[in-house]
């Protein structure tokens, strides 16, 4: 359900861009999805196709760029890579982590005709 509304958001951005930059068809969409963004990629792909049907992005290919989660460890004073929010710091095993990246959901670019 949530992925559905995200895809509607994506389509809205594409349609706005289509108006502003006058293109009629989108062939490929590149999305950057952080591993902490809470987005289920399989569901996103499924919804994307459904939402884009009969739109400017009809049959467009969806390319997902997955970005890893990063956090700042206050103990080690270093940036570390984590997989989940509750992961401990890989260096000191502590939980004084501030997530600094990996929760983004961005449309990077489009290939348009």
């Amino acid at each position: 359900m949530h992925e559905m509304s995200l895809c509607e958001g994506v389509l809205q951005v594409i349609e706005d861009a289509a108006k502003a930059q006058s293109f009629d068809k989108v062939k490929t969409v590149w999305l950057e999805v952080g591993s902490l963004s809470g987005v289920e990629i399989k569901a996103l792909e499924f919804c994307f196709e459904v939402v884009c049907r009969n739109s400017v992005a009809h049959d467009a290919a969806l390319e997902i760029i997955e970005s890893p989660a990063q956090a700042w460890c206050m103990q080690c004073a270093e940036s570390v890579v984590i997989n989940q929010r509750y992961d401990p710091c890989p260096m000191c095993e502590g939980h004084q982590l501030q997530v600094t990246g990996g929760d983004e959901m961005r449309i990077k670019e489009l290939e348009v005709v």
Partner: protein
Amino acid sequence: MCTVCGCSEGEARVNGQVHTHGEHSHDEHTHSHAHDHSHGHDHSHSHNHSNGHEHSHSHSHEHSHEGAHHYGQGPARAHVPGMSQSRMVQIEQDILGKNQRYANQNRVKLQNKGIFSLNLVSSPGSGKTTLLTRTLHDLKEQHAMSVIEGDQETSQDAQRIRETGAPAIQINTGKGCHLDAHMVGHAIEKLEPETGSLLFIENVGNLVCPAAFDLGEEHKVAILSVTEGEDKPIKYPDMFHAASIMLLNKVDLLPYLDFDVEQCIAYAKQVNPRIKVLKVSAKSGEGMQDWYQWLTLNQQSQMLGVETASQKPIASTKNMADAQHITEQADG
């Protein structure tokens, strides 16, 4: 990185005389493509800047046939095989950017009026509405309060709220699994909460999606009841990470359950080291004073710096003493 094939250097340069260029050869593929340049030459270039504005311009070209033609400077940083008719449009836009803009508008509007707003999130059945009706009932002498209720269907919750005397607006999300900032913006317009009041936004019962949608609130309040299992914070980490405070509700039932309170709090701190945890029971009233104190202190600090028609002292000495007490508790 070349966004076409992923190679690290995508700058294909084509030099030369004849414009039936070229061989953009990456390690594993070679291709040629026809390029429709009538040598004369009027062609328009459009290119996109990553900061979001586009401009295109036409200019006539003198081809000295000596210089280099650079096809790698466009957004794709490569000349794309079989794509001579298409172009790359760089967007770099947050999917939730639109929601964020509405949320920012809401936040400014609320902060200008010194309204302290909270987004209450939990799974269905954690006792959000009961906690809220008790709060509205107990604090009605001290605070002006209003409520935005989010549910998929029915306005039963708003009805329960209105019975306490507080103004309430129901938003039905239909198929939606969360409130968004646009819906809430409209509800705020209709509700017109008073300057210096408390605004509670009761989100749809869902521990997943509402975490991602900023509504313009000051804080998210996660409500977890002890009948749910102590591992909820790590099962739904996004929500507990987004919340500033967790209310552990229904603590009056603890004697009948195997719920491990300490473990639950440890899990919550694991996903969010800054989260504040209060143990409450909306039914028995246990721990509710701490919650009310938290609300009052935050509402008072929200009013600092807000100009009102009738300036009244916002914190009495007694409250300051209480504030001290709370701080000490939090530190301990």
